[in-house]
């Protein structure tokens, strides 16, 4: 099964390369500004590096932040070529306001996971354990996709717990777990993977889990539409997809 998959990937890669060859590397130059959700930080940096290797002459510049923050920035006129959101709602909002060009495309999914300190000192094994007395649980603010999904997952599991703090993005939650200020939080599986040995993940059963859908789109009025489209295509390509998978994302 694996060998078949590899063969398919290989053929697809050839196909992609030839189609990339058809669209002539000399058409791409300059910089492409990618506004991406904070949870895409490490994976997109890798994506960008690979993309630059494929298209010498293009420099990818990233702006990572909580998705709502990026939306506000784009609404206020910040220069962006590509927008990668951590949920459909924010993407729909931006599209409804007319800031997008073309249709958004889903490029990844991300499941939620409970994050705790290495060694799981508080013995968290389920969502219900987050409500244990003495456990400091923090969350992202409800306006951040991860925060919204956390609330949905907790509701599904019927767990009542009040977070001690509403952070502005997943990275802040992870930092506070790493520093030992908080005992538990709910972040994406990719974030847990990215933090490596500094944190530990506790899986959430599928029936409670809320899977985030990540769409990306070209921003209307992009300064470099060609490079924008190429980047989006790359993210959707098998090469891009495998990079994303290596960071813990589920496929498009």
């Amino acid at each position, binding site marked *: 099964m694996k060998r078949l998959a590899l063969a398919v990937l290989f053929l697809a890669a050839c196909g992609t390369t030839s189609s990339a060859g058809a669209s002539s590397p000399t058409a791409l130059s300059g910089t492409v500004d990618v506004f991406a959700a904070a949870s895409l930080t490490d994976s997109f940096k890798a994506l960008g590096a690979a993309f630059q290797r494929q298209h010498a002459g293009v420099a990818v510049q990233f702006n990572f932040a909580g998705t709502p923050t990026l939306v506000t920035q784009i609404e206020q006129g910040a220069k962006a070529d590509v927008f990668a959101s951590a949920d459909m709602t924010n993407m729909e909002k931006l599209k409804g306001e007319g800031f997008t060009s073309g249709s958004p495309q889903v490029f990844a999914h991300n499941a939620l996971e409970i994050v705790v300190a290495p060694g799981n000192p508080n013995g968290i094994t389920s969502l219900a354990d987050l409500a244990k007395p003495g456990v400091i649980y923090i969350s992202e603010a409800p306006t951040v996709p991860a925060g919204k999904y956390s609330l949905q997952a907790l509701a599904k599991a019927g767990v009542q717990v009040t977070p001690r703090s509403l952070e502005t993005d997943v990275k802040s939650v992870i930092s506070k777990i790493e520093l*030992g200020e908080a005992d538990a939080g709910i972040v994406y599986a990719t974030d847990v993977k990215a933090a490596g040995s500094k944190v530990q993940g506790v899986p959430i059963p599928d029936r409670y889990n809320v899977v985030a859908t990540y769409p990306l789109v070209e921003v209307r009025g992009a300064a470099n539409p060609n490079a924008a489209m190429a980047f989006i295509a790359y993210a959707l390509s098998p090469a891009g997809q495998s990079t994303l998978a290596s960071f813990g994302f589920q496929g498009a």
Partner: protein
Amino acid sequence: MRRERAPLWIAVLATIGAAFFILPLVGLVVRTPWGDALGSLTSPDTLNALKLSLIASLSSTAVALVLGVPLAWVYARVEFPGRAVLRALTTLPMVLPPVVGGIALLLAFGRRGLLGSLLDSAFGITLPFTSAGVVFAETFVAMPFLVLTVEAGLRSMDRRYEDAARTLGAHRWTVFTRVTLPMIGPSLAAGAVLCWARALGEFGATITFAGNFPGVTQTMPLAVYLLLETNPEGSFILSVILLLVSLVVLVGLRRRWLWSV
């Protein structure tokens, strides 16, 4: 005082300087949906944030006065090795990015911090995610303003007044309370106001160290930031409220204290 007319180049630059400050504020006031203002103003989250901001900033200023005035006194009056280094270190929060300040506070007073772990294990006291933590964070970033201003006042004061008081039989504490403090009154007030203003507007260190939760640690700046993402007009209203409160205090103190520094 003779009326002095500004040379043209000064007038031009000064106008640009003033515009730099005024235009953003005007923009804020103009774009605020005043119709919804009352609703926003009376929402529990807003009232909570406003109350917390005022209480925390005033508390921070009080702490800064109690700790900062003696510190300023030591800097101005006592010679000891390493004084310059110590003074530089305690002024650092003024130049540190506030978030960095917040992280430093976590490392010192957080649950696993140098002192924080001691507080936790010995007394069960933790500062992060508490209102006290907000006061800590605000004091950390705002106190240097008070220390610097008061130190300058002490240095520029004619110390012979203290000599005079001593020859009249006043002990050092009496000299301090009946002569020194009243004579540096303007500096003291200016320092306190600067400190309070900085504490009121503090964001980065607060959210990093104390966190963000309505009613407990969500101060006005934090509320504004979060509201910006879902309800920008609401955030404008909160911003203007913050602006008005600050303006009232600054203007109110203007004549008596600030300009005589």
